[in-house]
Every structure is written in C-alpha cells, then in structure tokens.
C-alpha cells in the first residue's frame, strides 16, 4: 500500500534482533503445552474472519456463475474454470495485465535507481546537507496517499498549476493549459512519477542505512590496493548491500503492483475509462461497478497468483531472518 509498510523496516533497519548477532534467541517449551496456542488464538481468529473466510469465498465463487441475477437470489451454478478461461481469452484483460506489469517494473526500477543515487549522495554529502535531504524525504514519505493525489493534481492543474507555469518559463516551451492526464500514456507517467516520489524516501533511507554498515577500513584497504572509487563501489559496496537491495526491489514490485488507490484517485480527479485502468481499478469495475462477482473473483485470484510469484523470493529472505 502506501508510505509505510514496516515489515521491511524491521528487516532492513531494525538491528534489535541482530544487534547481538552471535547470540541466538532461545525459545522454550511452555510448561503448559496449551499456552502458545492460547496466545495466537485471537490473531488467528481475526485473520480467519477478515482474510481466510473472504479468500475461501473468493476461490469458490471464482468458479461459479455469479453476476447480477445471483445478487438477487438466483442460483449460482458451478462453471468451474469458465470465468478464468473467459478472462484469459479476453484481449482487454491481457492488455490490463501487461500494462500493470510494465507499470510495476518501470516504477520499481526508477524508484530503486533514484533511491540508490540519493543514498550515495547522502554518503558523500556533509552532515548538515544529509540531514536536510533526509528531512525532505521524510516529509514526502509521510504524505497520505489521498493527499499525495490531491496535491499533485493541483501541481499539474492545466489552468493554474505551478508545473505548467514553471515549464513555460523555460525558453521555447509553452505548456499553458496543457492537460497531463488526458493522454493515457501521460496519465500513467504522472501516476508513476507520484508513486516514485512517494517511495524513493524509503529506498534511499534504507540503502543509506545499509551503506553505513560498510566499514571504512575495508574501503581504505581497497583504496591502498589501488581500487578506483568506481571499482570500490562495484566490487565492494554493492556486493555487501546486495541483500538489502534485493529485498527492497521485491517490495517495490509488490507495492507497485497494488496501486489501486492511486489510480482510482487520479481517475476521480481526471479522466475515467478503460484506457486508464490497471488491475486494481479493473477488478473494482468488474465486481463493484458491474456486479459480475464471479469474474471479478477470478481476476482477483490471477492478481494473487502474480503477486505470489513476485513475492516468493521475498518470503524466503524473511524466513531466513526468522531462523537467525
């Protein structure tokens, strides 16, 4: 989702579990064998009600005919994989899938590239400049999604937006009255820019934290051995911070795939229509918009599958952390 999803903060920045790296945490067998189960019951209960039950409903109904008539009490016959096959045979669904994946990859890589550059810059800059940059990043990071979208809509407002004004000040450019959301490609570019703006802070600050773990002695030694600073970056720093980079990239993939809120809000304030849909808004339109819940459930299952593929690696990394 949005600005903060702190599982990663835990992994990336919080050294409290690993601060005493040599001591493995000890777990005991409870005197009463029921105690641990009693402790997890409330959490498991709420997960069953809030997630597992809807998930079960979704799996079942993705295999049934469930449209408007069923809303009003008609039988919902089993049609097994017909919902899936009709989606997969639909050219428009594929267009939305591909569009979402391209959007995800583009935004994630842009975020990572800018984030890493800013982290290196923080390392190179004097303390006061680094703190200034960190404060600015924190401000952007803290913005709620809805406020992000209203503010950027105002910045790019065709009539009085400051972006068009500033661009028009450049010689040879006249952007007066330019509508940034009209063209689908431009619409998605704006969406990607906003999401990148909002997610770079997390990446930059995490990568910077990782960079500070690279000991100066190692770099010093490399320099004495005649390594250029580019070589030091490529062969010493990058390999050391690689695990952090991988986790961050995977998180960006996961988050940039689920951008329902941003796209929906940008459509609210700008143009609407199929051409401006990504998977989230597409499923919303199918289910809540048109009441075709069977199809929407099948589409949601496909999104889930895509997410699972992307996050498989991430889960492996986290489990490794738990074993430590």
């Amino acid at each position, binding site marked *: 989702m949005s600005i903060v999803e702190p599982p990663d903060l835990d992994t990336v920045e919080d050294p409290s579990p690993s601060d005493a790296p040599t001591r493995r945490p000890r777990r005991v067998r409870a005197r009463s064998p029921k105690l641990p189960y009693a402790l997890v019951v*409330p959490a498991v209960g709420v997960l069953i009600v809030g997630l597992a039950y809807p998930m079960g409903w979704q799996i079942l109904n993705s295999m049934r005919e469930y449209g408007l008539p069923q809303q009003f009490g008609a039988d919902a016959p089993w049609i097994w994989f017909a919902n899936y096959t009709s989606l997969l045979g639909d050219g428009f669904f594929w267009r939305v899938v591909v569009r979402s994946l391209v959007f995800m990859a583009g935004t994630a890589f842009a975020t990572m590239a800018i984030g890493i550059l800013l982290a290196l*810059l923080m390392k190179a800059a004097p303390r*006061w400049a680094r703190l200034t940059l960190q404060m600015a990043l924190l401000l952007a990071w803290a913005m709620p999604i809805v406020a992000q979208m209203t503010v950027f809509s105002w910045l790019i407002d065709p009539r009085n937006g400051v972006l068009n004004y500033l661009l028009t000040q450049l010689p040879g450019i006249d952007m007066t009255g330019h509508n940034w959301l009209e063209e689908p490609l431009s619409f998605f570019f704006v969406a990607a820019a906003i999401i990148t703006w909002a997610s770079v802070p997390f990446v930059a600050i995490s990568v910077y934290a990782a960079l500070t773990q690279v000991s100066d002695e190692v770099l010093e030694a490399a320099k004495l051995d005649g390594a250029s600073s580019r070589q030091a970056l490529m062969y010493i720093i990058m390999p050391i911070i690689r695990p952090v980079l991988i986790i961050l990239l995977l998180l960006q993939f996961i988050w940039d795939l689920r951008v*329902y809120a941003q796209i929906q809000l940008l459509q609210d304030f700008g143009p609407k229509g199929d051409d401006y849909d990504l998977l989230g808004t597409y499923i919303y339109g199918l289910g809540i918009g048109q009441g075709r819940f069977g199809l929407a459930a099948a589409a949601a299952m496909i999104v889930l599958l895509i997410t699972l593929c992307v996050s498989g690696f991430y889960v492996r990394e*986290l489990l490794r952390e738990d074993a430590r």
Partner: protein
Amino acid sequence: MRSSVKRALAAFAAVVIAIIWAFPVYWMINSSFLTPLTISGLEPTFLPFGGTLKNYQEVTTETPFFEALTMSIMVVAVALVVCLTFATLGALAISRFRFRGRKTFVLTVILVQMLPAEAMFIAQFKMISGLGLLNSLVGVSIIYVAMVVPFTIWMLRGFVTGVPIELEEAAMVDGCTRIQAFRRITFPLIAPGLVASGVFAFIQVWNEFALASILLTDDDAQTLPLWLRDIAQQSNLGAPEWGQIMAGSVLVAVPVIIFFVIVQGRMAQGLVGGAVKG
C-alpha cells in the same frame, strides 16, 4: 582539495534535491493559506504572505469534516487497541515458545502481508455486506485489524526477541509467576516497540483508502481520506477550489507527519537504546 570540491558539490546536489522533494508538501501548505483570487491568478504565488485562514474555516464548516474526523478517530482507536493486544500475544508466542505449528503461523503472518487489497476487496465487500456491516464501525474495524495485525506481530517479534528470556527466568526464580514476569520485566522493555508499531498501525489505518471506499459508502460514515476525496471531487465538477482542497489535505496529512517524526526518533531509540545491558 579535490575531495573538498566533491563534498561541496554533493552538498549542493543534496540541497537541490531536498527542495525538489519537499516542494509538493510546501506547495500544499502554501496554497492552503491563499485566497481563491490569488490562487486563480495567472502567476503562481510562491510565498503565503498576506495569507488567510478562510480555507480552513470553510472546509471544516461547510463540509462534514468533524463527522469524518470522529469516524476516523473511532476506527483508529478500535483497530489500534484490538490490534496491539492481539499482536503482543502473538509475538510472545512466536518469540518465546517452541510449539507445533509455529513455522506455519510465522509463514502465514509473512504471506498475509503480501496480499494486495486488490486481490481481496471484492470478497471482503461481499462478506461485510452479507453480515449487514457495511457503513459500520465494526465491519471496517474487522478488516483493518486483519490488515495490520500481521505486520504488527512481525515487528513486535523483533522487540520481544530482543529481551532475553533469561531475564524472565531470573524473575521467575525470584518468585514471579510467568505472567508477573512478563508484566514487570518484558512489558516495560518492549514498550518502545509497542509505541513504534502502534504508530505504524495508526498511520496505515488513518491513511487507508481502498477498503474504506468500498466498505463505507454512506455520506455519514466516511473516514477522512474519503472526505478529502469527496471535497476534491465535488469541487472538480466546477472550477476546483484548490485552496480549500489543500487545506483539507493539510488537515489529513498533519497528524501523520507529526507521528512520523515521532516514530523515526523512537525507532532510532529502539535501535540504540540498549535497555538490556546486563
């Protein structure tokens, strides 16, 4: 000499980028103080001199702001209390005890965090509407607790693991029961963790838009993000009242920004503050 030039360049670049990154936030605040006349002028106004509080006054009185604020506060309070209680218990279980099914539970906690709202919200909508809980505090709270509990457990796990079990055992040798040992030893030591994860949960719930937009459709059951979307959308039908929309955005964003700054400090404290030194 060369390296000092480099540092100066880096400082310059850092400041320029800081200005670019903070600009939208600055622009939001700046515009929120401008009159409609100034804001619709041909030249943008870069400094809020001669500003007005009128936007704030209008946006809070002419729209159901206080209703939305009340709803947001109630949702956040219920979700936070329930979530923190459940998550503390769960975190204790996985970081203190060996038990059959522990791995499965940990895996579930991790996997569930990957679930995109997109992949679930249709089914959640059907369930909540089937229970007759659309537009109710209870309905949205169930979904929110399920949404934030996993990461809260995961985050607290780190803090609980940071308190060595030997401390609790020592207290038990001295005559405490397990519950007393937890309350007197572990609980105070993980308090910063509770604050930090509580603030994170707060931010998530306060900002949540996707689920709220489908579970809270009534005008009088809206949380603040929905309220903000509404005023932006309504005024978009005519000429947008950007001053008011920005004032509304400030009102939604400010609590988050404040808590964010707090939690950053707390996190740092949790990292360095070696509460357990011997």
